[in-house]
């Protein structure tokens, strides 16, 4: 098992947001996490990334506990995050942003080869590597964010709303990239509003409602599930 989340409870101060959530992600899987705004998806992700402490429960990556470890050590476990809203460093160049992605990599040769790999996936970034990230368009920024996350050669990558605010054509590109990554053997947790699209490319999915997992199963099953259709597809 790549990721094991067991019975975690967490929240902000006195406000509990996540109630007894468990989740498993196997190696080389794409798992979708869907739910309404405010259902607790972002909170769950922040907890996995160490930005929020858990009040109870465990999180394990490849059998090692990572709950309540400082956020800056999480990346050593092979986890990378593509955050909601992209959160690039706008006054740094594309190249610098990518280098930040490999911040924990000490070997410059490995950084170089990771960079070549990312440039291979996103050739456009190579062309414009000296441009400031803040001057990019939304779609380009999304590509850069994914590229930055890949720079650490993660085993497990979490994408938080990668299609947010992007034109449909660009959204397609993003999802294509995900499939490429999947083929390269990266485990993916995909948090999406675009429920239909994400279920289409995922292996399995969890539905989060009000801080609790209410449904889970194969993505193809959920896609045809009437309740999901009604709640998230509005049909």
């Amino acid at each position, binding site marked *: 098992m790549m990721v094991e989340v067991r019975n975690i409870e967490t929240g902000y101060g*006195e*406000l509990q947001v996540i109630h007894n959530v468990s989740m498993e992600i196997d190696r080389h899987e794409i798992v979708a996490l869907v739910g*309404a*705004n*405010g*259902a607790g998806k972002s909170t769950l992700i922040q907890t996995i990334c160490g930005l929020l402490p858990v009040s109870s429960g465990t999180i394990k990556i490849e059998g090692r506990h990572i709950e309540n470890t400082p956020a800056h050590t999480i990346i050593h476990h092979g986890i990378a995050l593509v955050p909601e809203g992209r959160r690039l460093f706008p006054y740094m160049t594309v190249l610098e942003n990518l280098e930040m992605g490999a911040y924990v990599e000490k070997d410059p040769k490995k950084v170089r080869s990771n960079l070549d790999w990312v440039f291979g996936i996103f050739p456009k970034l190579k062309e414009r590597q000296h441009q400031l990230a803040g001057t990019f368009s*939304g779609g380009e920024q999304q590509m850069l964010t994914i590229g930055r996350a890949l720079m650490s050669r993660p085993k497990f990558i979490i994408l938080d*709303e990668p299609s*947010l*605010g*992007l*034109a*449909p054509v660009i*959204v397609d590109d993003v999802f294509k990239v995900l499939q490429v990554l999947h083929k390269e053997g990266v485990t993916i947790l995909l948090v999406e*509003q*675009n*429920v*239909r*699209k994400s279920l289409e490319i995922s292996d399995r999915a969890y539905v989060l*409602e*009000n801080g609790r997992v209410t449904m889970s199963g194969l993505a193809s099953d959920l896609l045809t599930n009437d309740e999901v259709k*009604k*709640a998230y*597809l*509005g*049909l």
Partner: protein
Amino acid sequence: MQNQSLLECKGLTKRFGGVHAVKEVDIKIQAGMRMGIIGPNGAGKTTLFNMFTGEIKPSAGAIYFKGHAIHGMKPHFISKMGIGRTFQIVRVFDELSVYENVLIGAVAKNFHFKPTREQHDAVRRILSLTKLDSQKDVMAKHLTVAKKKHVGLAIALVGNPQLLLLDECMAGLTFVETDEMIEFLHKINTDMGITLVVVEHVMKVVMELCENIVVIASGEKIAEGSPKDIVSNPHVVDVYLGES
């Protein structure tokens, strides 16, 4: 008054730097209507709202409320004219009790050196309407997100607005709570005659609540019509619901 719309915007445009957040949008909202505005995140819905309430000045275009041009006016002035709003990221007066939160809403609209008996009565009425009376002495920051949304709604309602702008007021609510909220909104629309404009993601809400829907994508209005028309509009399904 019959053929004059309550709120109307013409050619409304907002540029941030070189980017068009909102581009030449025309919308007419008739009094008593329940209008929905939908669109993908980043489409410019909240920017549109912020221009209606005066928080952002439009780059071009005009907004009329009850026939008066209100673009460029200060938010507190627009608020006093009868436009209430709630915020996408829920905002309350954190370290004050729920009662005080709502009382501020009343006092801000109609200033008396000491809040009058009528104002206190109005606050109590609104609190029971929004089912907050049992929690009226709780400090607002200790409430759940759902309850905070009610407080935000109560602050807006206590000022007797003619038009209420609701920015994602369902986000984070359970299905049961959502149903209750829809019912509540119906009630204030019919009983109190408040015109509603909602920005929503949850399609179910828009479908059940709104008579008329405007779809916005990349800052532009791409469709307008009844819920049924919108759902069957292939263009809308493309950009908003995701193509199949």
